[in-house]
C-alpha cells in the first residue's frame, strides 16, 4: 500500500473521529439551550488543533514504519492528488455557497460557522476518500 494511501486512511479516520465528536457535542449544546449562548469557538479551535497534531503524529509514525516509501512520490501520486483535490474543491464550493446563503439571510453566526466548518470537513473527507478509492480501483 503506498505511503499516500496509508496517510489518507489515517487522515480519514481522524477526521471522522474528531469532527464526529465535535458535531455530536455541538448538537447536544444546541438541543440544550439558545444558540446565542453557545460558546462553540474554543471547542472548534481545539478540534482543529487535535486534528493537526494527529495528522503530524500519524505521518511521522507511518514514515518511521516505512522510511523508504515516505519520500516516494511519482506521477501517479501526483495525478491521484490532483483528481481527489478537485473532488474536494467541488464539495467545498457547495458548502461555501450554503454558508453565503446563510450569511445573506443574516442567520446567527453560529450556524454560518458550523456550515463553513462542515464544508471544510466534508471537502477533506471527499478528498481523502477519493484518494483511497483511486489507489485501490486504479484511475
Amino acid at each position, binding site marked *: 500500500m503506498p505511503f499516500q494511501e496509508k496517510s489518507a486512511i489515517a487522515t480519514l479516520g481522524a477526521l471522522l473521529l474528531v469532527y464526529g465528536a465535535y458535531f455530536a457535542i455541538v448538537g447536544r449544546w444546541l438541543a440544550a439551550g439558545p444558540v446565542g449562548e453557545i460558546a462553540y469557538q474554543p471547542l472548534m479551535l481545539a478540534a482543529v488543533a487535535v486534528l493537526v497534531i494527529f495528522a503530524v503524529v500519524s505521518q511521522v509514525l507511518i514514515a518511521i514504519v516505512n522510511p523508504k516509501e515516505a519520500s516516494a512520490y511519482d506521477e501517479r501520486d501526483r495525478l491521484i492528488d490532483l483528481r481527489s483535490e478537485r473532488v474536494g474543491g467541488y464539495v467545498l464550493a457547495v458548502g461555501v455557497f450554503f454558508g453565503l446563503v446563510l450569511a445573506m439571510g443574516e442567520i446567527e453566526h453560529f450556524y454560518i460557522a458550523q456550515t463553513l466548518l462542515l464544508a471544510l470537513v466534508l471537502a477533506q473527507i471527499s478528498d481523502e476518500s477519493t484518494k483511497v478509492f483511486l489507489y485501490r480501483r*486504479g484511475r
Partner: protein
Amino acid sequence: MAKPTRVTNSIRALRFGAGEMTQGDLADRIGLTRQTVNAIEQGKYSPSLEVAFKIARVFAVSLDEVFQYPHGIGAP
C-alpha cells in the same frame, strides 16, 4: 467511475526475462514507486509517454513490445 485502461503490457514477462528483476528494481531504475509499477503491470494505470519509453529502454526493447493497444481502436 474510473475505467480500467485498455492498454495491456508485457512488463511482468520482460522482468522475468531480465533475470527476475523485481518490481522494486524496475521502479528504482525509472524513478517510480513500486506500487506504481505494480499498478501499471495490472493495467490499473497508464503511465506517461516518458515513463513508457523509460520502461522500454530498461529492457532494451521497442515501445510496442512493452505496451499493446487493441487493434481497430482509433483507426480511421
